[in-house]
């Protein structure tokens, strides 16, 4: 495509939780556009395997163990990246998990873990990397939120609340930094074929058939379909897009969910 296939060359991107799933797909997509991918992963083995796989494909990638809940851990990551590359051009706040339980039974630990990783972790990473980007006068922060951030998905109160907060954080920080060269954007994936989904299906708390029926396009997303949008948003092609969230959901949130007959 005329879209420059090297449009991210010489860019350094940190992707959290990129040992697998959407994060790894984004890392691969960015590498294919010429970027260096830094895989920040709590599971050090998964991070190293992912970066090795990318290197085996001829890409420039490395990993560092990182706990996004910890300021010290994130600061160490940012220091390592800036020492090695001198800059950070993109941060993808992707790390996440999804526990399913009735709110009245939800242990404190489950609530805190999800909010710590998917909201506090986004803030900690955004502040640390954003400071570097503001100094550079350039950079893009991409938050992975969710369609669950737009409304109620019962039994997922912590997940929904954290994702809604990330949509708000995107708008807030996007506006704060709009005149300082740093864009902050978000992608809200619909149901996506990942190992988290697979695990929920195996637990019997998620049904692929049900998700397929609920999605106007009749199917769930592949991780590459989220990654291609991530690439657009961090590229210079999206230079006037900031402080906003783009749903990548096959039409899920546009629809009220009631079956009907097309009458256009």
């Amino acid at each position, binding site marked *: 495509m005329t879209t420059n296939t090297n449009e991210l060359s010489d860019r350094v991107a940190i992707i959290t939780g990129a040992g697998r799933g959407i994060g790894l797909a984004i890392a691969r997509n960015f590498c294919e556009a010429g970027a260096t991918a830094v895989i920040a992963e709590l599971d050090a083995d998964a991070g190293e395997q992912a970066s090795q796989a990318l290197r085996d494909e001829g890409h420039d990638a490395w990993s560092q163990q990182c706990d996004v809940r910890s300021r010290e851990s994130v600061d160490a990551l940012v220091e390592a990246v800036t020492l090695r590359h001198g800059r950070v051009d993109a941060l993808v706040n992707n790390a996440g998990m999804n526990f399913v339980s009735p709110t009245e039974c939800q242990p404190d630990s489950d609530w805190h873990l999800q909010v710590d990783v998917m909201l506090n972790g986004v803030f900690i990473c955004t502040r640390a990397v954003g400071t570097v980007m503001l100094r550079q006068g350039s950079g893009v922060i991409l938050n992975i939120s969710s369609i669950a951030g737009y409304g109620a998905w019962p039994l997922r109160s912590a997940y929904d609340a954290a994702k809604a907060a990330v949509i708000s954080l995107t708008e807030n920080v996007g*506006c704060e930094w*709009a005149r300082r060269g740093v864009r902050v954007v978000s992608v809200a994936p619909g149901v996506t074929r990942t190992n988290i989904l697979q695990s929920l299906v195996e637990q019997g708390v998620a049904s692929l058939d049900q998700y397929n029926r609920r999605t106007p396009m*009749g199917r769930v997303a592949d991780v590459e379909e989220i990654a291609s949008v991530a690439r657009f948003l961090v590229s210079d092609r999206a230079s006037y*897009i900031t402080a906003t969230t783009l749903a990548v959901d096959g*039409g899920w949130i546009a629809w009220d969910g009631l079956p009907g007959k097309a009458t256009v």
Partner: protein
Amino acid sequence: MNSRFPGQVALITGDCDNLSLTLARALRQEDAQVALACQGGLGGSAIEAAGARWYAMDLQNGKASQAVLRSVADQLGRIDIWLHYASATACSSGTAGLDGVHNCARFIGEIMQSQESGRVIFVASVAGLFAPAGQALRNSQEAALFMLTKSLAIDWAPLGLRVNAIALGVVQNGVAAPDDHLLGRIPMGRAARPQELVEAALFLADDRESSFITGEVLRVDGGWTAYHLFHPFDEAF
């Protein structure tokens, strides 16, 4: 580098102004055949110089519009991308303008359904999301385009068609310099360059990039609609 839309046909309706011409040129550069169906404010020669075919069309005349669209489909063989772009002037026509777009949608939708593929992009204004004072009719018209986007997306998703919108903030149109009063409201502090609209439109038209996006409104607004507080923007700090 390969082009993005070889062999595809793109139809642009709505305004005949510099932005529609820029969109036409960009689609042409990506090897799409481009038809621009509008009333012809720029003149046919300017449109043809951009590599597009011009079809004189008055969107508010339903029967005549259908005849024009039929000519486009007959002469170019298919319609893969339909991009409707209406400026503030066109939107002042109110419900008649909406009827015109809906009328086109029915016809173009049938063609795309027979192809089992197609992408529709409505370029409307952020005025359909937040209400600028003193232009109730225009704001309502813009909002209607966003709801039309969602409604068509839902109806057509099972048929393989995608429908999305762009909520455009202030854009340089090559005619008048953007008003400082408006620029002061925008977090980024500047108007969009035409190319920034073009890139968003091409992204939504490209199945290799946005294949799972439908029924969505992409805000290309420099942060306008995220910001709710004071005017000018500086006063927020």
